[in-house]
């Protein structure tokens, strides 16, 4: 949009933060509820499937020849049908952005600042997100580079401090419920965050150097997936699958268990900070892509004028999206995977076929 580019390393950091952001809060709970002590296996499984998905996306980027997903779709399917498909793609991203905003809002208002009304939490967060999206991709990539070491250090600290509380029995019996629950719940982790990766089809053309691009993406997903697996494992090992399933935010509950030598308690704030950072980057990537996508959809020159009006829309949507956590949990459990599959796989696959045909014809 504004000729800004990011390096493969910055892209990798964005992918890691995107993978971890918000899924770390909402995935372990439902996973533990359905797959019990084998929840970690379904995460690993979904990451493996996710890697295939990434290779598919990567192949697609090559076919798009430096165009974003929106531009490529319009090129392949023409002005009307292309825009018809894009309407669904962009609405998917828009709704996803609103849901992510609601996740952080829920987390903050239940755990950290219960006195503050939800709207104001959302507004403050979104103002910073808009500020990031306004400054552009380059700045987002650089800030990811600044924050990444902190996120890593805090995560390592977090893991080490929890090691003494691990109870290996919590993982037994291994595959006690059979393979089926593991397979069926892996769709959950596939829906959040892997199929959401489709958003990077909007950013990839702006990543410098074609060759390390795929490596950066695969590595990013692997590292992000590793973090997710470790956190889920810790949830199971420390809390046990029943307690993990009962909590809305098991990974935060986990942090409350930290106790170093009896005096360093209440370190859950530190974990809250990591979650906030990762969700911020997920949100800023999503929001940037939504506005850039809409701007390209409307053939505007600049996405910046759209940032503030769309922000008002996202706030409203994030408030009305669900009345209570129960509604959200059923939505995630039943609808999110097919919804994400349609927009994260079927729709890109359709465009991919179109691109292939177009390439055959011209070449």
């Amino acid at each position: 949009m504004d000729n800004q580019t990011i390096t493969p390393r910055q892209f990798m950091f964005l992918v890691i933060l995107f993978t971890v952001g918000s899924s770390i809060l909402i995935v372990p709970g439902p996973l533990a509820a359905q797959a019990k002590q084998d929840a970690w296996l379904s995460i690993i499984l979904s990451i493996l499937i996710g890697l295939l998905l990434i290779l598919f996306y990567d192949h697609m980027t090559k076919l798009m020849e430096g165009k974003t997903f929106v531009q490529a779709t319009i090129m392949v399917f023409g002005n009307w049908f292309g825009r018809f498909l894009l309407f669904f793609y962009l609405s998917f991203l828009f709704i996803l952005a609103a849901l992510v905003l609601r996740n952080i809002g829920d987390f903050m208002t239940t755990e950290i600042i219960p006195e503050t009304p939800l709207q104001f939490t959302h507004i403050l967060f979104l103002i910073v997100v808009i500020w990031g999206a306004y400054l552009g991709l380059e700045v987002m990539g650089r800030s990811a580079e600044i924050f990444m070491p902190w996120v890593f250090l805090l995560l390592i600290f977090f893991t080490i401090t929890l090691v003494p509380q691990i109870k290996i029995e919590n993982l037994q019996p291994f595959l006690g419920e059979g393979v089926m629950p593991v397979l069926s719940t892996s769709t959950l982790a596939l829906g959040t965050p892997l199929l959401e990766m489709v958003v990077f089809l909007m950013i990839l053309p702006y990543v410098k150097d074609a060759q390390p691009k795929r490596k950066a993406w695969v590595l990013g997903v692997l590292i992000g997936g590793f973090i997710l697996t470790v956190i889920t494992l810790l949830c199971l090992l420390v809390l046990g699958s029943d307690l993990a399933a009962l909590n809305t935010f098991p990974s935060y509950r986990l942090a409350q268990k930290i106790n170093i030598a009896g005096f360093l308690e209440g370190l859950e704030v530190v974990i809250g900070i990591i979650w906030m950072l990762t969700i911020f980057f997920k949100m800023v990537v999503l929001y940037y892509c939504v506005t850039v996508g809409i701007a390209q959809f409307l053939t505007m020159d600049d996405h910046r004028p759209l940032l503030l009006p769309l922000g008002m829309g996202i706030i409203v949507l994030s408030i009305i999206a669900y009345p209570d956590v129960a509604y959200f949990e059923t939505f995630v459990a039943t609808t999110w995977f097919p919804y994400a599959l349609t927009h994260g796989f079927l729709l890109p696959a359709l465009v991919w076929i179109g691109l292939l045909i177009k390439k055959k014809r011209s070449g």
Partner: protein
Amino acid sequence: MLKQKSNNQTSAASKPLIPDLEESLAHIRSTMGDSSDLVIRPMVIHKTSAAVLFMDGLVDMNAVQDFILDALMHEMSSKRVSSHQLYLTIKESSLPIGEMEEIETYKELFDKLLSGETIVLIEKQKKALSASTKGWRDRGVQETTSESVIRGPKEAFTETLRTNTALLRRKIKDPALRVEPKKIGRKTHTDVAVVYLEGTAETEVIEDVMRRLDQIDIDGVLEGGYIEEFMQDAQYSPFPTVYNSEKPDAIAGGILEGRIAIITDGTPNVLLVPALFVNFMQSSEDYYQRSDISTFIRILRLFCFFVALFMPSLYIAFTTFHQEMLPAPLLISLAAQREGVPFPALVEALMMELTFEVLREAGIRLPKPVGSAVSIVGALVLGQSAVQAGLVSPAMVIVVALTAISSFVFPAYNMAISVRILRFPMMMLAASFGLYGIILGMIAMVLHLCSLKSFNKPYMSPFAPFIPKDQKDVLVRFPHWGLLSRPSSLTKKDQKRVDSTSKER
């Protein structure tokens, strides 16, 4: 209207010299409005009338006396010559002065005259001579007052441009050191010198500096700060993007890193561009102390940066929003302290921080002996009695003191100021959103920092974009034999600094 007027003035000033001496002197007198410090010494050299002009106070009287008046009035051969012949003789052989120039217009004449040169006018000549006799009282090279160091040179720049360029030349004796002159200011005609190492500084940056300097159109430049505000990239940022120092060794170090120094006449603070965030966290002393000490100090500075920025806001956030997150004994003692305090934590913090800022400002303005009295009254008496009166809690006083001391750690005063300013919005965010607000404030600040550029160099490099090769001289300072290359975030030319074999034994 105004523009036209100034055009008229310049055309009048650039008018060629009038050959008739009387008329010419009359013109000069009327332009200067009979100023009392203009000295005109008419004389007759072998029946040709001539005049010597200089400004009293701007010239070295001895030089004028011995080398101009003496030479012209006593030592000229007594043969009568034509006026042109006389002019040539004076120009070529009879003035024992180092720097000498011919001038043809009144603009040049006034420029030279007013910067302290002596003008020789001769009847019926279209040209005049100007001899460099500059010499006025200045403070001399003294010890630095604002950037004191324990180890390392203690000399500081002065207000005189020539002295300052000489101080730099004495550090870098390389013919590639360029000193390019500029004049800025329609009224003040301030001399500005751009100093850099040819072949080390990037050509684009040099051109950028020159272009930005040429664009400045202002009536007067009294201090380097005028130029800084015209040149800086981020006009509306609390963070400085131009570095300044009054220590020649710090500036010379910057020039060796491929940066460009801008010296303004009348300013002991020399500007240095491009300036990155990390430059404001480093002191020239880091390179004189042993590397392990410097590394420790640098990390300490970064830590102090966070303390100075976030300490009061964290105090507010924890006492108003997140009491449950504090360990119980600490919480109890804090609550007991805050028991009788009639204000919310934000008001308490704002009050104390503002008091401290006022005290600091007062301490700077007052003469030295009184200044220390103020600091005693302020720090000890005010703090103590505020706590005893129950207006603020002792913990708050500790927090404010810690913040203040931490903000003194930065070697660069302008970075310390931006931290002092940013502390207040952080406190507001903390008071309304607690920790959530602080984190979001921090994210917004980092986003802003990452978007800044200084002369097209990313402000946060070498952290973002991350340059592994440059990490040797950022948080950690390698020993000098390990600083093999120049920081590539500043210049990509002439990379080699140390030969890797120089530490073999």
